[in-house]
């Protein structure tokens, strides 16, 4: 049972990196590729239908951390208090940017929220690199370490690459070269690689600190029957918003 829940936890965290990674990557690329307001509109429109289905993987990671690793939840989050607060604020500003950018017409309004999307995406991507470094040291070292900062740069670059691949896949030709589904899969794996590495190292420790079997049994009975529904809903998103001529259709709600 501990093994099963470790796999669920690993899948959720790696899935977050592979999925939300391209949303954050597109956010990072907004000031780079989106020189005009129209290009930025189309970039956001291309990723918009996926964002709600992608970011929720991290909500699930935190819930699983609480349910399956209650003894670690506080240690991890409290141990990184300033970093977690900064990442939450980045996440909030990124989301607010997406929800608000088109609610008022006017270049300054949209420009401001586009800047918030880019800023928030950068804060989250960079923060993840530092978090992974701290996790790799068993939360004994401060995340503000040259290696932590380096990992922040690496994760941000991986996400940007993933975001660019996503744009090339979803709206072929609109933002540079067209990319295949296979290329997107590879860039997704690359984006998840840092998380998978830390998870592999932390596996014995996580397995040892799982919640007791009574709790895990309840979670299994309650959650696992919904697994096909959750998976089906995710597949439905990818089928509905597959690449096509309306992929970067504007107006989009975001």
């Amino acid at each position, binding site marked *: 049972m501990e093994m099963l829940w470790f796999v669920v936890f690993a899948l959720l965290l790696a899935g977050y990196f592979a999925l939300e990674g391209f949303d954050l990557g597109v956010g990072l690329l907004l000031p780079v590729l989106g020189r005009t307001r129209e290009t930025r509109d189309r970039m956001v429109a291309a990723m918009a239908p996926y964002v709600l289905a992608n*970011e929720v993987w991290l909500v*699930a990671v935190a819930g699983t951390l609480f349910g399956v690793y209650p*003894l670690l939840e*506080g240690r991890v989050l409290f141990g990184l208090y*300033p970093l977690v607060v900064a990442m939450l604020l980045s996440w909030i500003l990124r989301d607010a940017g997406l929800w608000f950018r*088109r609610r008022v017409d006017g270049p300054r309004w949209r420009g401001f929220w586009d800047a918030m999307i880019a800023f928030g995406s950068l804060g989250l991507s960079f923060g993840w690199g530092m978090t992974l470094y701290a996790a790799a040291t068993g939360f004994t070292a401060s995340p503000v370490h040259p290696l932590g900062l380096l990992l922040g740069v690496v994760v941000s670059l991986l996400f940007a690459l993933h975001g660019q691949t996503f744009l090339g896949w979803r709206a072929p030709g609109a933002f540079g070269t067209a990319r295949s589904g296979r290329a997107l899969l590879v860039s997704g794996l690359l984006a998840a690689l840092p998380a998978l590495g830390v998870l592999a190292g932390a596996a014995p420790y996580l397995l040892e600190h799982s919640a007791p079997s*009574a709790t895990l049994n309840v979670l299994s009975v309650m959650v696992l029957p919904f697994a096909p529904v959750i998976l089906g809903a995710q597949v439905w998103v990818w089928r509905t918003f597959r690449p096509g001529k309306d992929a970067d259709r504007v*107006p989009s709600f975001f």
Partner: protein
Amino acid sequence: MDVLDLARTQFAVTGSLHFLFVVLTLGLAPLVAIMHTRWARSGNPLHERMTRFWGQVYVVNYALGIVTGLVMEFQFGLAWSGLSHYAGDVFGAPLAMETLVAFFLESTFLGLWIFGWGRLPRWAHVACIWLVTLTAYGSAFFTMVANSFLQNPAGALVSGDRLALTDFGALLTNEALVFSFPHVIGAGLFTGGMVLVGASAYKLRRRAPEAEFFTRSLRTGVVTAAIGIFLTMGFGYAQFAGVQEGKWDNTGAAIALGLMIEFGQLLGLIVLFVMLPMVRNLHRRRWAHPILIVMTPLPFALAILGWVAREVGRQPWMIWEKLTVADAMSPGLTAGMVTASLIAFTAVLGLLAVVDYVLIARVIRRGPQAPDLGATAPETRSPALSY
């Protein structure tokens, strides 16, 4: 303030902000789902405009529900790690259900609904908003399961220096839950109904060109508010059967409770015995419209008072008679850390909340002409009709 007061203030501020948006989500979701279903069945353009207009109010409100909710989820680990350390094996289960199943599906289906316009088959699109409603209520249910456990730690036994889960069924049939959950749902419907009433009264008062649209919305709002306040009051009083001994000895909680009951009853009388009987011709009673407009914020204030009564009344316990808030606080938490995060969260979320309410007011002022939601091609807004 010492560090404990600061940490409690942070939870109270972010929690209250979160619930202001959640309570409206719970009320509007089923209403938008009904409107969408009627549109799908009739094909009537009026129903389409109602779905898109009230749907737009619903999703703009939803944005703040999400971002404030993120802070709530992570705050347990940031400031209250003693709770997960002591009771994580019990308390973590409903939270995992909420995030891993209910909210996961809610967010996925909401994305499909918002961006599915012109892309999803008609009935599949309707199914999405019903699934969003169902999972939103599921989220509310599991959140209330977790909160009710703090009020009345059922289904758990002390084992060593921690709580162990012994009976998950007892968590779901907790006497602190069975009446409080429908009470919250009633409050959501009441709030959603009163927002429809207030916004429609505003548009009717301004003699907006869409008189039929807002007359219908006003009626839907009155009926929903009546159902909501009836449920809220009934299940509110029913809760006294299972309330913890000594909960109202706390002065702050007792005041909040008294205010909520007094004003809630008064509002209940107005909705059930004045507004509901007048539902057929309330749209023509122009003198009543300013009153209906100023009543709009009251359900929100009552909802916050309800939470203040429930949560302040629990003090000094985090888990009733098992764990105090002082013991639940993260060991090593300093006043400096909480002050910094309290200021940052309050400033950012507070500002965003104000912006969000201004945007909702703007949506209502503009009226149902070409809302952003469901626009699949550029539509022109006629300036003469917009303002």
